[in-house]
């Protein structure tokens, strides 16, 4: 059923010429996404994250229910759309994933540095992704509203802006090369303009997301990691200030846009 519909769409796209053809193909992909969204496997990661949140784990055999994600200990709803933000107890601007690892270390006794070094999808890092999916899902539909009152939050925004426009690597690409203008595409993939507010559920407001193409749950850290890989940059360290600053820039720009995370991507 699904296959025939896609085949038909592709066939139709093939018949029409020029720009019209690309629109049909883009529409076909949109339809494909809509069909997939019916049963987003991100739900499974969300459920796993929720049970991990409540479960007594780690050397200290504690749950994460006292974790402060910025809105007070244990408050999950609305936390995601205000991250990254400054945390007084660590003296740092943190994004969702690094904050979760701080809680895992302080409350449960895990080794934060060790988790940060664990590859995506493996061991405790896979748990961090599931936890991030759960926390993000609790803010679905809420508008982004990152705090910018603390000087460090402002500094991270400004530094993040510089990272966003930083050409480098063997291809001279920056984030802005692909995400600096409206209505651009790579191949058939539409690219949100992230220098301004891209709107509801797009760009920063769409991750974590489940990727159908490789059957993986992608956190924001992994999304940025793969952007940098494709930019031919060196490897961005998990939880680095550089990634947090970039996320701050994207998140502040997304102010008012409603979160769609966890989304589903082709």
């Amino acid at each position, binding site marked *: 059923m699904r296959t025939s519909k896609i085949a038909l769409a592709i066939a139709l796209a093939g018949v029409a010429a020029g720009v019209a053809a690309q629109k049909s193909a883009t529409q076909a992909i949109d339809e494909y996404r809509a069909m997939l969204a019916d049963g987003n496997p991100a739900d499974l990661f969300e459920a796993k994250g929720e049970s991990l949140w409540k479960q007594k784990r780690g050397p200290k055999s504690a749950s994460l229910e006292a974790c402060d994600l910025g809105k007070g200990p244990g408050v999950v709803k609305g936390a995601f759309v205000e991250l990254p933000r400054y945390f007084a107890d660590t003296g740092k601007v943190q994004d969702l994933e690094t904050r979760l690892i701080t809680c895992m270390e302080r409350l449960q006794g895990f080794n934060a540095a060790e988790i940060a070094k664990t590859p995506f999808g493996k061991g405790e890092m896979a748990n961090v992704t599931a936890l991030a999916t759960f926390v993000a899902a609790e803010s679905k539909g809420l508008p982004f509203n990152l705090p910018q009152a603390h000087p*460090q939050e402002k500094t991270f925004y400004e530094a993040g802006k510089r990272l966003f426009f930083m050409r480098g690597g063997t291809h001279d690409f920056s984030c802005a090369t692909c995400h600096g203008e409206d209505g651009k595409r790579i191949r058939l993939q539409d690219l949100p303009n992230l220098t301004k507010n891209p709107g509801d559920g797009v760009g920063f407001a769409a991750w974590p997301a489940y990727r159908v193409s490789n059957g993986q749950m992608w956190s924001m850290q992994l999304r940025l990691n793969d952007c940098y890989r494709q930019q031919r940059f*060196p490897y961005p360290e998990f939880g680095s200030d550089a990634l947090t600053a970039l996320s701050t820039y994207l998140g502040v720009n997304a102010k008012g846009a409603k979160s769609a995370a966890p989304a589903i991507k082709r």
Partner: protein
Amino acid sequence: MKKTHAKLAVCILAAAVAAGCAAVIGGPDADQVAADMVKTGFRSEGIAKIDRVTTIDETLKVCNAADVAGKPLEAALAKRIEEANLKSIKWPSDGKFLGDWKQGEQIAQSGRGQTWTDTAGSANGGNCYNCHQIAKEEISFGTIGPSLYNYGKIRGISDPNSAAAKPIVEYTWGKIWNAKAYNACSNMPRSGHMGNLNEQQVRHIMALLLDPASPVNK
């Protein structure tokens, strides 16, 4: 008066966290904070070494600063950058500009190479279709760059080896080799200059764009 006080307080606070006051309002200190973040935030992995972001050339430095400021380069600076890039272009060693358009099409299709998951010495792609429309048959193309369909035909190239075709042929080679020679802050990679494509690969892409027999010019 009150405002000044508040601003000063913010500056002192910011200085205390070693970010610096100017960083808050977007001055040169924010540049320093970002540069420090880049140094500690990336590591060499496989063939993708850290110097790819820590030792960028003047062209990229001035263009990045202009983008952050939201202003284009000053005309004189842009001209100087373009001239420097133009000088760096390596022209075909045997004077032969065009190769085989069929191989050019394959190179244009490939987006491979130079990432930390690629191995040294593997064949790089041109990444052309990621940003450009080229042959009409391929509907999966990007729009970051202009359409190159009918590239040679539109420019009246019926014989790429003729004297009349020379300016276009040379410009096209130069643009592929080092796009910044013609537009200082172009989004286009400097494919030859940065070692993404070798001389022979550039010849093949030249043929794809300029050979009257190429599907691009049909």
